[in-house]
């Protein structure tokens, strides 16, 4: 009985959906995503904006409701502007470094690695199977003044005395380069792999040298990969929290750490509204920076010759 009832019910359901206009059907299919983003992204974001206008309780925890601009006024304190500056500088440095190291590697993988390609790609991916936290702690051991690296360098006579890198900005930089490099390599690899090799050959046939071919053909054609890679590295880097905390010994403050402190800090050092205001500001700043960046590279999207 029920078995025979089911198909008709199903049919009726289907036909009901089919009777919907196109936008209605789209809406139906998008509903789960809307609900998800609404509940877990939009609502918390709105909540953060609301909190940023409330008044700090003075000892952490949820603030008292109200409308105050104190938290935003605090932002103008040179102290916090400096933290912004330090973070942006490190994010830029990290992005450029990842690009400089990542591009040649991706180029090699896409054009020269031939049958070892899969193995090499796997080698880049495998560390990702280990937690980010553990890999960063591993660097703490490596960079330690009594650590592996220090001992090897001393044994080889490259340095005299122990390595004093841990808990410095240099250590943070090394951690960033290591952790973010794969995020840069993959989009570059995809762009280089899809590059129509005949265009490179054509360039050479027409008399361009290797260097001219790279600058005039390869690089412009892979710019979308560069743009994507830089965004993938730069955006999370501005919110980086773990690397400065672990490899910087919590004494080289990044924006992420400053925000974290406002929520997790002990006693007086936590201030939800100020943390929320910092968060809102970072989001707004990033939106502006990223839009300028994308605007500047808009023509990249329409570069011809993209195979694939």
């Amino acid at each position: 009985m029920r078995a025979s009832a089911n198909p008709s019910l199903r049919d009726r359901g289907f036909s009901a959906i089919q009777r919907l206009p196109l936008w209605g059907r789209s809406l139906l299919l998008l509903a789960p995503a809307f609900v998800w983003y609404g509940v877990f992204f939009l609502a918390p974001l709105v909540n953060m904006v609301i909190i940023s206008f409330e008044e700090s309780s003075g000892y952490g925890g949820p603030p008292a409701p109200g409308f105050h601009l104190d938290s935003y006024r605090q932002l103008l304190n040179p102290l916090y502007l400096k933290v912004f500056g330090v973070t942006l500088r490190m994010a830029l440095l990290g992005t450029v470094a990842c690009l400089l190291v990542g591009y040649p590697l991706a180029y090699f993988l896409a054009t020269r690695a031939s049958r070892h390609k899969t193995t090499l790609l796997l080698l880049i991916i495998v560390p990702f199977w280990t937690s980010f936290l553990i890999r960063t702690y591993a660097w703490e051991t490596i960079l330690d003044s009594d650590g592996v690296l220090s001992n090897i360098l001393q044994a080889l006579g490259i340095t005299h005395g122990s390595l004093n890198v841990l808990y410095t900005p240099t250590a943070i930089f090394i951690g960033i380069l290591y952790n973010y490099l794969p995020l840069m390599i993959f989009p570059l690899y995809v762009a280089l792999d899809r590059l129509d090799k005949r265009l490179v050959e054509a360039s050479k046939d027409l008399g361009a040298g290797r260097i001219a071919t790279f600058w005039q053909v390869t690089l412009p054609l892979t710019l979308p990969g560069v743009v994507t890679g830089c965004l993938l590295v730069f955006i999370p880097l501005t919110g980086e929290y773990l690397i400065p905390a672990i490899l910087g010994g919590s004494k080289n403050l990044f924006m992420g750490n400053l925000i974290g402190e406002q929520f997790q800090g002990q006693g007086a050092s936590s201030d939800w509204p100020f943390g929320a205001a910092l968060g809102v500001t970072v989001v707004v700043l990033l939106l502006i920076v990223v839009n300028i960046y994308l605007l500047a590279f808009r023509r990249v999207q329409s570069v011809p010759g993209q195979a694939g």
Partner: protein
Amino acid sequence: MADTRRTHDPASGRLDTATTPRWNPSLSRRGFLAASAAVGASAWLAACGAQTTTKTVPKLGTKLEGQLHIYNWGSYYLGRDDLKAFQQQFNQTVTEDSYDSNETLLAKVQAGAAGYDVVVPTGYMVQIMAAQGLLYPLQHDHIPNYQYVDAMFKTLPFDVGNKYSMPKDWGTTGFGYRSDLLPAATSWQDFFTLATGKASGKTIVLDGVNEVIGSLCKMLGFSYNSVDPAQLEQVRQKLLALKPHLLAITATDDITLMSNGKAILALDWNGNVLSAQAQQAALQYVIPSEGSEFWVDNWALLKNAPDPIAGHAFINFLLDPKISSKEITTTYYAQCETEAFKYMDQTLASNAVIYPNQGTISRLEAQQALSSDGAKLRKQIWDEFKAA
């Protein structure tokens, strides 16, 4: 900010059974009888495991529900054996969750985290939570073991008369230094001189605004809880002078850094320095001569505790000197009952790092909840210190 003073992980160079003999569980029958007579109605646990003798259900009106929910610092902040004994004696299932700072506790409770009975706030947080009406007023007639609590813990400014909290254990903030590498140090002034001199680059401080600013306040002769702008300005300058000499600001790696010798000077809690002593015998803990802080962690019940009766029974159980004397082998922090000395491992009882003498205790101040403006001022100084 993670806080490890409560997490006693045997894997990370903690005192273990090799260096400190464990509590000897052979409780004499006679001692048992004498004690249970003294406490009267309170329930007791017999020796060697879980033999129950007098089982008394506290009279708050209803029966124990059979479920107790504890919200505590990291999992090594409550003895496993003691917990098991409680479960068996009162036939309770105990669920534990943990938090890593007083502020996390406050935030969760304010946000309406329901279902917890017992929580463990530090002194100043008891004051804050009680003021907000988040704590259950304790019924002292259900906690007969309160009689064992030492007088000094009954009049603490954050909860005079223990209306909302019972002391769990206490400790001090001071500094540890390597006596084999550094000249003898006895004061905060010595700490500062060493940190900016001989121990430069090998000094660590806790990642805690109250401890660091409070300690420098003491060095300059102010109150640990000072919020006076002129005084804090002096502290600010000292902090900024100290910053370039620091190896790290941490409450998570401090024990490791002291243990492996990278930090030879550390502003820290006594229990953490004690833990690192297992690896570095020359590490000395100092309660500075200018004075310092003592903190007290407390048992408290939440206002909306599902089972306040079981909560009272639990607190009473852990205030039993026979039980609290065992807790110290888990936490390495001082218990608040002189009576507990009788049953305690004597190497711990006579350890001056855990139990300083009366003269030292008189120089200690308790952390208090600060005024809102004062707290904000301290926060600004702290942020500047960290970002410098």
